[in-house]
């Protein structure tokens, strides 16, 4: 489960910032990125995001993992736009008897989308890299996101880890009894694993509910209490948003 970026949360300026401030600022910047018609602003956000990731000392592997999917999509979009849309020919060549045409206006359009993607992705990545899940949840709940939605998200988050753990546990138990030494038996073992993982998970969800009810669970999970906003953080973020806004209007 190391793909979860939260696992690498370190002590740094952003991780200490109030989650609500981070969420609101990120969402505002995200909206600006998406509504901007040109290239400059998203690109600027992208570069700042990279800078923050660097400051947070995100390990390279996690960083690449996180950006691999968007980068991939960016390249697909660029290719699609370059060759399949637009009117003005940028270049053309023959390829197995087909004339392939690259369009300059298509390319421009592609770059615009690419910047938008990278800008948006990097701002959300910074939020994800710097904020633990339960803080985000507490923040969302403060922002009037329905409480039950927040709660099932927290359950889900917990169960994701549990499923992986239980999967590993069963895998080890099987390996220990020669479960994966022959291919045919291995497939069979894996089948047993999938089935019993499912059943165990259902049982587990039932058992833990019983344990929770025992300890006073009445249908609503207790959440982190929010500390009061700190003036310095709020004013800093207002400043950042204002600067961003000025750049955006240019």
């Amino acid at each position: 489960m190391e793909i979860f970026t939260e696992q690498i949360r370190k002590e740094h300026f952003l991780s200490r910032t109030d989650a609500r401030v981070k969420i609101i600022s990120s969402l505002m910047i995200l909206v600006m990125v998406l509504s901007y018609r040109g290239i400059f602003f998203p690109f600027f956000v992208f570069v700042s995001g990279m800078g923050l990731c660097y400051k947070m000392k995100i390990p390279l592997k996690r960083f690449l993992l996180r950006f691999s999917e968007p980068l991939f999509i960016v390249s697909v979009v660029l290719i699609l736009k370059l060759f399949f849309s637009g009117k003005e020919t940028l270049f053309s060549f023959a390829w197995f008897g087909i004339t392939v045409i690259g369009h300059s206006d298509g390319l421009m359009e592609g770059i615009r989308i690419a910047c938008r993607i990278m800008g948006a992705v990097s701002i959300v990545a910074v939020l994800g890299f710097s904020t633990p899940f339960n803080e985000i949840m507490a923040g969302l709940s403060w922002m009037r996101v329905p409480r039950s939605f927040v709660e099932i998200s927290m359950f889900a988050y917990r169960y994701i880890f549990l499923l992986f753990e239980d999967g590993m546990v069963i895998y080890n138990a099987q390996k220990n009894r020669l479960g994966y030494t022959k291919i045919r038996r291995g497939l069979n073992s894996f089948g047993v694993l999938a089935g019993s993982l499912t059943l165990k998970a259902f049982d587990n969800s039932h058992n833990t509910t019983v344990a929770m009810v025992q300890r006073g669970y009445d249908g609503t999970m207790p959440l982190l209490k929010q500390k009061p906003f700190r003036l310095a953080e709020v004013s800093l973020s207002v400043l950042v948003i204002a600067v961003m806004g000025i750049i955006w209007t240019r």
Partner: protein
Amino acid sequence: MDPVIRLSVSIDLFTYPDGTRAMSDIGLSVHNGEFVGILGSNGSGKTTLLRLMDGLLKDFSGSILLDGRDVRRLSAREIYSKVGLVFQSPDDQLFAPTVFEDVAFGPLNMGFQESEVRERVFAALRDVDMKGYENKAIHNLSYGQKKRICIAGLLAMGHEILLLDEPTAGLDPMGEYRMMSLLTSLSKDKGVTIVMATHSVDLVPLFLDRLYILSKGSIVRGGTPEEVFNTPDDMTQVKLRLPHIAEMIYRLKHDDHLPFSKVPLTVGEARREIINLFNRTDA
């Protein structure tokens, strides 16, 4: 013995959905502030009995009264504000990601302020010797450590009645001893009523007020440790044994014909008996 009866159980029959007759002809009662043990072999029904008392299993014939009221009629809140159950397997009980969050869950639900919650959590962790583990992920704990956190989770809530399903299984010998002392002091000093299923025969006579022996879903004997731990053969019949000390003195008395006046159950008593004997023959 405090005359107030907190729990009174009388079960004619309880059958699990798969047809297992797990409980029949049970009658027992637990007084206020008592520390009662339930002993029995594997599969004799200890866990089932505790779950029945806790209101988790309802499909039985008979009655279980908590402070005089039928547990089947009580709401979850009414039961669990008084009664806390520690499950036998820690994995059934722990659900939060970290130690602190798990132990704090109960107090948070009770509506305490954050500072009070923290205080209770830290006190409970101290009681089970797990201070300093607050931020450790639950699934990274050792088995005995998990067991301790389970108990801490209940201690932090300060129930009046505790049901404990083998709380000392998997604890190291010192932990076992400390846990039992802690429970005894809860019962003696704070008046907490405790019912505990256990296999630790040797600790029973040191700490428990009274015990019941279960066999195949029925109670076969009940009373103080002295009354119940009688002869080794009676115990082997129900797959238990005497405490080692008692076993030894029993053998010395009956097989080797040393003139012990009684069969002591604990190290302390046995020392006294042996010294007495020694002085007598010496003189």
